[in-house]
């Protein structure tokens, strides 16, 4: 999930710097951090999962900015929709397959309805 925007950032970094100079350094820093996390996966997938939580927001940011850079203005709607579709698909798989999802999040309950 976080590797795809990192790799795409490396491919499109020149255009990113030109179009969004104010955020470029932040995105580059977190791309480097993301790539440096690959060895952590060997140590522990849980540790990687936890570190991912810190990197993920900037990864989302990278995704959003990339969609504005990669696609032409005429395809702006598609550009905005693609990251949403990717995270929606991820959620669907997670809710369908994960033991954590079924045992910890379902059903959603609120003190409001008790």
């Amino acid at each position, binding site marked *: 999930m976080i590797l795809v925007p990192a790799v795409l950032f490396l491919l499109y970094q020149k255009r990113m710097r030109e179009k969004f100079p104010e955020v470029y*350094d932040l995105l580059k820093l977190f791309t*480097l951090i993301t790539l440096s996390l690959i060895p952590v996966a060997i140590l522990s997938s*849980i540790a990687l999962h936890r570190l991912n*939580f810190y990197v*993920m927001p900037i990864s989302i940011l990278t995704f959003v900015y990339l969609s504005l850079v990669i696609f032409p203005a005429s395809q702006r709607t598609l550009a905005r929709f693609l990251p949403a579709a990717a995270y*929606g698909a991820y959620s669907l798989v997670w809710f369908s397959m994960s033991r954590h999802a079924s045992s*910890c999040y379902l059903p959603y309950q*609120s*003190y409001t309805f*008790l």
Partner: protein
Amino acid sequence: MGARLIISLDFELMWGVRDHRSVTDYGDAVLGARKALPAMLKRFSDARMRATWAAVGLLFARNRDEMLDHAPKLRPAYTDPRLSPYPAIEREIGRDEADDPLYFGRSLLDRISDTDGQEIATHTYSHYYCLEGGQTLEAFDADLAAACAIASEAGHRPTSIVFPRNQMTVEHIACCLRRGVTCFRGNPAAFAYRARAGVDNTMSVRGLRFLDSVVPIAGRHSFARAKLEAGAADVPASRFLRPWNRQMPLYSRLHVDHVLREMQHAARMGQSYHLWWHPHNMGRNTSQNLAQLDRIIDAFKRLRDSHGMESASMADVVQADLPVTSAPSERLKDRFGMLIYFGVYSILVLQAMTVPDRKANPFLLLSGFFLLWFMGTRYWVGCDFGGYLNRFDNTLIFRDFWETVLREEAGFQFLIASVKASGLGYMWLNVVASFILLLCILIFCRNHRSPLMILALMFPIMIIQLGMSGLRQALAMGFLLLASVQFMRGERIWTGAMILTGSLFHASAVIFLPMAFLAGRPVSTLRLIGALLVLSPAAAFLLADRFDVYTDRYIDQIYGDMVSGGLASDSY
């Protein structure tokens, strides 16, 4: 409603008998249970039978330290001190399961949960006695919180309870409901089976039950469906399966014959029959006891073929019966499941797709208010809900202010203490934590293009998976977002300050401290390495106290893979 055979087992090892039996006179039966239990599981598995295993919370602990770490601060002060297990934990029992198999049972619990169709329920944390002198509702609530927390850390969320010695009142049941335990095993309606304290279990009462086990003097105990009691589902017991008796083999034979007749009656009437026992009941004379069980299983198979009788756990019964017996809000919650999360995500995405960036602010605010309600008022949602609840219950309010503030991850400790000092309940801890997190997220979003889309994309992982579970890391992540805003502005000191503030909630955030060094400078691989070299020693120093905890939790995973923070065991 079709006929059902419900089976529940009170899994307690020595904890259930230690007040009136010694290891010398009963230890062999408890050790025998460790062998009988896998044999029972195999039979259930082969016959595709489901069962509820109500486990004493202490059995989830892998060692004595874990037992004490999870123990509630408020312990029962029984009039009869023999009933409390805590002195024994501190002085008598061994280190772990290998050292003391009479009191530890985690490997058996894992085996049960690995078997299809087996429900893990709670039997309280300490084998708590609800009707014995000296107990209080507050002590029961604390005990139940500990039971839910330790089960939750093992990856289970008990929704059913079997009260030890079948002692309960409606107040205790209501207490369970507040802790997310929505189903209990009630007693048969007859006089001999009423909930009573040990002292009231007179010879005549026990004699009546003894006779009722072979002849139907108290009537039949099968039932049509679960009913609501104090808001929870009562799945009443029908019959205790008595262990095979070497002195009275004929009585044992008649008892099982009686059980089979009752099962047959339930099957014919389309009713439910709830059989229960303890694994240690089969720890002695195991082959004869398993032969009794085989007769019951064979009878069940025949009734399944002839009358469509089904096998069910207590949770299965609730699931099948609740749509008829529960409140409308309960039905709503069950029906929607994950659609609620997808619905929220879809609305956030739709909003992001249709609202232009220049008009985003009021929508961000509105979304923030909704998410604050959604996250803050959640009830038993998130893997760490029980862990943080336990931590909340056990945090002392400002016993010493500086002692509270100067601990590791003091920010979160301070947050808990502040909420408690204000006289507010656990829900408000979630509300306050969600408020801080959402404020950080909204500030972050506002500083970028497509703020509504960034918020929508944050929802599945940053809000559901982290924000609604790992409170401390979520708050640390929130401050890291603020640090990233300061980083963009080239504010080195503020970047560092935000990261250090985040580390007050989860010390691991400090590993991002080198970011402060790079703020306002062009980022390159070389500079990143330089920043790491300059600031890593400081980060390592600040992280040193927590390093062992994180290694245990995230690398060695000694608490299991469901734990994502808020452990009750690490930092009172």
